[in-house]
């Protein structure tokens, strides 16, 4: 006579079910809150101070002969120059689509920055017909340091510690704000 099989093997373990409804409520509430308070448009800004002209500053400049790196945005090219001829004048032709070659400009500015490490100011001289979009693109190329760019190390004058530069030419001033194109 066969023995009756054990009932232990047939018995199924009791299923534990977590009540997910309150967790679901919390998630839906959090998602709603995040979507309601989220800023979908993210603005950024390019800050530029008003150029201040004073006889004292002019006298200091004539004496010290700073780089005073100037970038003229012409209709067909970009012109990099220094009023005191501290760098050779360089012309960067626009691309075939008529837009300024910001990559070449960025490379040229990095080379200048490596020679003049403490210089942080760029004077921008756009023409009257230059579009706002072009101005923003040129300022981006002049200010931002990309991850692929060579590392530029500058000595912090306050602490005396060598630090990696965060911006290329961080201070951009409009040079012809108070006058005309010429």
């Amino acid at each position: 006579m066969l023995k009756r099989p054990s009932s232990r093997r047939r018995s199924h373990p009791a299923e534990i079910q977590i009540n997910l409804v309150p967790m679901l409520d919390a998630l839906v509430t959090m998602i709603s809150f995040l979507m309601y308070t989220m800023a979908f448009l993210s603005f950024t800004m390019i800050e530029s101070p008003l150029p201040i002209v004073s006889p004292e500053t002019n006298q200091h400049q004539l004496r010290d002969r700073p780089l005073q790196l100037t970038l003229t945005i012409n209709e067909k090219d970009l012109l990099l120059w220094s009023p005191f001829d501290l760098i050779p004048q360089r012309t960067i032709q626009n691309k075939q689509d008529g837009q300024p070659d910001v990559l070449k400009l960025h490379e040229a500015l990095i080379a200048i920055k490596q020679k003049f490490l403490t210089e942080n100011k760029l004077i921008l001289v756009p023409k009257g017909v230059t579009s706002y979009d072009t101005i923003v693109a040129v300022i981006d190329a002049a200010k931002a340091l990309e991850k692929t760019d060579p590392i530029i190390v500058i000595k912090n004058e306050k602490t005396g510690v060598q630090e990696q530069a965060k911006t290329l030419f961080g201070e951009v001033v409009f040079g012809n704000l108070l006058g005309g194109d010429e």
Partner: protein
Amino acid sequence: MRSTIRTRRGRKKIHKDFELQLTSMMDILVIILVFLLKSYTVSTNSFSSVPGIQIPISKTQELTPDSLHLIVTPDAITFENQRVVEFVKTVDSLEKDSAKAQSYAFKNEDLDEGGMRIARLYDALNRAREKAELLRAQSTARDQNGNPLPFDGIIAIQADKRVKYDTLRKIMYTAGAAQFRIFRLLAMRQDQ
């Protein structure tokens, strides 16, 4: 429409112990939540986009604190939600894509100082500066010498990417004349 006996018989009955499977829905919601938390940005200013203008895109990642706000729309210049100066209307500017056709030219009577200063905008900016100075004088906040905090002179400029520098220069010149010393050119942040 009344259901027939056949369709009523064919309909499957739901068992009393039926439970909705919420696990997959939980998975979806958790993924949405993680995505939102990752890309969550809170705005600290009251700037908003304006219909009809295309804002340029910039790599700059600087946050934009709230400040006085000037918008150059295809039709006019708006300062602190008030229409200050209207541009010259041309036939082309009445087209659908008015920002493209707009010349952003000022009327001669709106300009002074050799065509560089926008008179109405100058008045509006001066009023805003005087109001800010009055509020600072009434405030309890003081500098080291006990004087009211100086006027910061910051203005945020939002314009279409096709606006020419000639228009921007006149605006910045006018703002400078009204003792605004710092210009914040607004752009859309490019995702890195």
